[in-house]
């Protein structure tokens, strides 16, 4: 197991290098510089601005300078938020996004897994259609529709919950978590149901049923383990995708998370910020995938053997 981990971690280095290289050159290809604005400025001023941020050096030189800084853990100053370093922005934004993401996943699991299990127990009956349809609302409406609708109903018409902010008023985390989580609830419900149906048709489950065990017991004891495997392999990428996907929710609910910086940085041509968030997110995605793999191996004894070799 330990060897398996080490191997995977060693492989992460070239992966990161590829990510860094592609991003670095791609953003410099995009038209428009970080300091362009409506009023034109004299070329001397622009040159001085570029000099302040090492943008006057040849691109290859900039690239190696960046790698050097990165090794020291320095992601550079943000071009857009001039008083802040990218490290600071990530340190501020990431915990917020992570918290939002965890609540969203929690909500998604809480709604999605039971819905999927219940649905799988009696396929093609009302017990299947009702919970699945309910869980699916989240993938039938984009979050930029669901969010404003929830805000309108619970925030403005009923006045129950705040429509913006994060941790400044009680209850302001509920609507964003539901908005972000509902998409994933639908996916999780679908995947759980699919996985459960698969397992429930296996011979050993039939045997268990034939032995007279109650359906509920069979589900809880035997089927669940096999049924959640696809959910676990989905969760790793989902968590990572969620960070990027949180942009919409963070924007409409006014949440100071990383997702907002991340997309905004691309529009602002905030080179260091794009690079910093990309490197950070890429590292995170690799980590989550690794965790998902480890859990998969752990859930499947045969793979465990294989990984040991």
């Amino acid at each position: 197991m330990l060897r398996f981990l080490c191997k995977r971690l060693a492989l992460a280095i070239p992966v990161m290098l590829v990510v860094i290289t592609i991003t670095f050159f791609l953003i410099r290809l995009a038209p428009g510089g970080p300091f362009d604005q409506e009023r034109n400025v004299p070329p001397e001023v622009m040159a001085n601005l570029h000099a302040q941020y090492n943008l006057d050096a040849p691109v290859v030189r900039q690239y190696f300078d960046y790698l050097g800084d990165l090794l020291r853990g320095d992601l550079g100053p943000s071009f857009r938020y001039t008083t802040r370093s990218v490290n600071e922005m990530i340190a501020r934004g990431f915990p917020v996004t992570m918290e939002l993401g965890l609540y969203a996943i929690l909500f998604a699991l809480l709604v999605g897994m039971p819905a999927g299990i219940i649905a799988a127990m009696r396929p093609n009956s009302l017990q299947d259609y009702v919970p699945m349809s309910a869980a699916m609302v989240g993938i039938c409406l984009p979050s930029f529709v669901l969010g404003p609708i929830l805000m309108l109903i619970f925030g403005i018409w009923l006045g129950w919950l705040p429509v913006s902010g994060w941790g400044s008023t009680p209850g302001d985390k509920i609507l964003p978590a539901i908005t972000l989580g509902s998409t994933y609830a639908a996916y999780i419900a679908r995947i759980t149901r699919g996985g459960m149906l698969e397992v429930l048709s296996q011979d050993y489950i039939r045997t268990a049923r034939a032995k007279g065990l109650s359906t509920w017991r069979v589900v809880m004891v035997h089927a669940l383990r096999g049924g959640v495997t696809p959910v676990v392999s989905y969760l790793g990428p989902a968590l990572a995708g969620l960070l990027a996907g949180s942009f919409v929710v963070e924007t409409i609910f006014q949440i100071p998370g990383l997702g907002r910086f991340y997309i905004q940085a691309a529009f602002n041509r905030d080179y260091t910020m794009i690079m910093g968030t990309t490197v950070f997110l890429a590292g995170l995605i690799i980590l989550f995938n690794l965790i998902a793999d480890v859990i998969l191996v752990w859930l499947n004894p045969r793979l465990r053997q294989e990984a040991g070799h």
Partner: protein
Amino acid sequence: MTLQRYSRFILALAGALLLSACSDGQRTAVEIGNEQQILHMGNGDEPSDVDPHTTVGIPERQIQLALFEGLVSKSSETLEIEPGVAHSWDISEDGLVYTFYLNEEARWSNGDPITAEHFVWSWRRALLPGLGNQYAYSLYSIKNAEDFHRERISDFDEVGVTAVDERTLRIELESPVPYFLELLEHHSFYPVHPPTIEQFGRPDQRGTRWTRPENFVGNGAFTLKSWEPNRVLVVEKNPHYWDADRVLLNEIHFYPVQQPATEERMFRAGQLHIINLLAEERVPRYKSEEHPALRSFANYATYYYEFNTRVEPLGDPRVRRALSLSINREQITDQMLRGGQRPAEHFTPPGAGYEARARVPYNPEKARELLAEAGYPNGQGFPTLTILYNTLDVHERIAVVIQQMWRQELNVNVTLRNQDWRVYLASKRGGDYHIARSGWVADYYDPNTFLDMFLSDGGNNDTGWSNERYDELIGRAARAEDTEQRMEYFQQAEAILLEEAPIAPIYFYQYNHLVSPSVRGWHSNVMKHVNYKGVYLESQP
């Protein structure tokens, strides 16, 4: 039965969550703010910094107006110049020398007195080439300032700013500037506290830690209390401010809310007193309801289309004028936008003692004639041009409407192209466009801010159009001593601009936003100028 148990659990959980949210007394931020004199404001975007010499945006400006004060300040009610750090000033007969007498009571937020030397230091910093101040050019009217900024001279003593004594500052200009006092109110003329800046870096270093709340020293009515990026920036009353008696608010909270829709919902949920911008499509609704919070006022700004005169057939003034004449501006403002915008039949918005006589009316017949004269009768043989605009719903709708107008009136087909803001700027600057949407918001309250843009060497003239006579008229206006004469030069220049039509004005902006009725002493005005002095909050009965 298991299903039942599960749904009961979910219901209980949801109930608990809602109860915990509702059990709190349910007083909104606005209600609490009204009692404690805390103003909650939507501020558009996250400020990049609050340093007045390195920032360019409006969100930053709104905050700087609270944190700093120039030699003079401006009333937001009358837009008249009022004393700021200087209690009085003299202007020489020839309009070249300004002498300012500083208020003895004027202090930094740490209690230090403000001296004339501080202004000299600050303006030198604003002009240091290494700082990369994008607004440095606004100081160019000072003698030799441009040479210093462009490194043609290195000795700042040659620049026309002198501290005569502790409390007297003398400024010499290159040539008379009728709106110089107006300029002085701009943030690039604000003083900064030299010891603080030097403590955290070189004077020409950007983004040092001096603007962090724990380090910040300013001289405005408020001082920086806290700043959490993308969440809120808080300023609190500055006890050392010379006119502190007239500062009635205890705190202002600036929220960086980018989406107007989000801002409006926050307002309705009682989280904001003032929103920065009401979305276009929401204005008619508030208007028809006569909502007490709606503030709608003319803005000193123009929305227009630019023609790239280097691209055929846009090199022909008849073609440009034909395109301009066939835009039904009234239809755009009255039937589509419906937010109080006024159709622009000329370029400079009326105001500052000037209203253009020349017009480019809606006249499709004349347009067809001109187009035929230029060799495209009934649009035959006219190439397919492209309208470029930056990605925003309102630009898109206007482009779609104008596309239809040109098709119907002139039988001319155009395609649309939207680009992200930075790409759009790069395309415009590189001359890589045919027709581009543009907007110009005045830097100062004077027609010159609109008309000097189209000088042949104007830094913001992306149309490739140049006209000697036009350049000469604008030059004469700058030297004119008599206001009436000056305005006459502008009239003649604008007539040329409309006749030659490198641009097609479309409408004059209208600024619509919401201000809670509990906010008193808040004056919305053409320049979007804010003066927080005298603003206070009153709980509604």
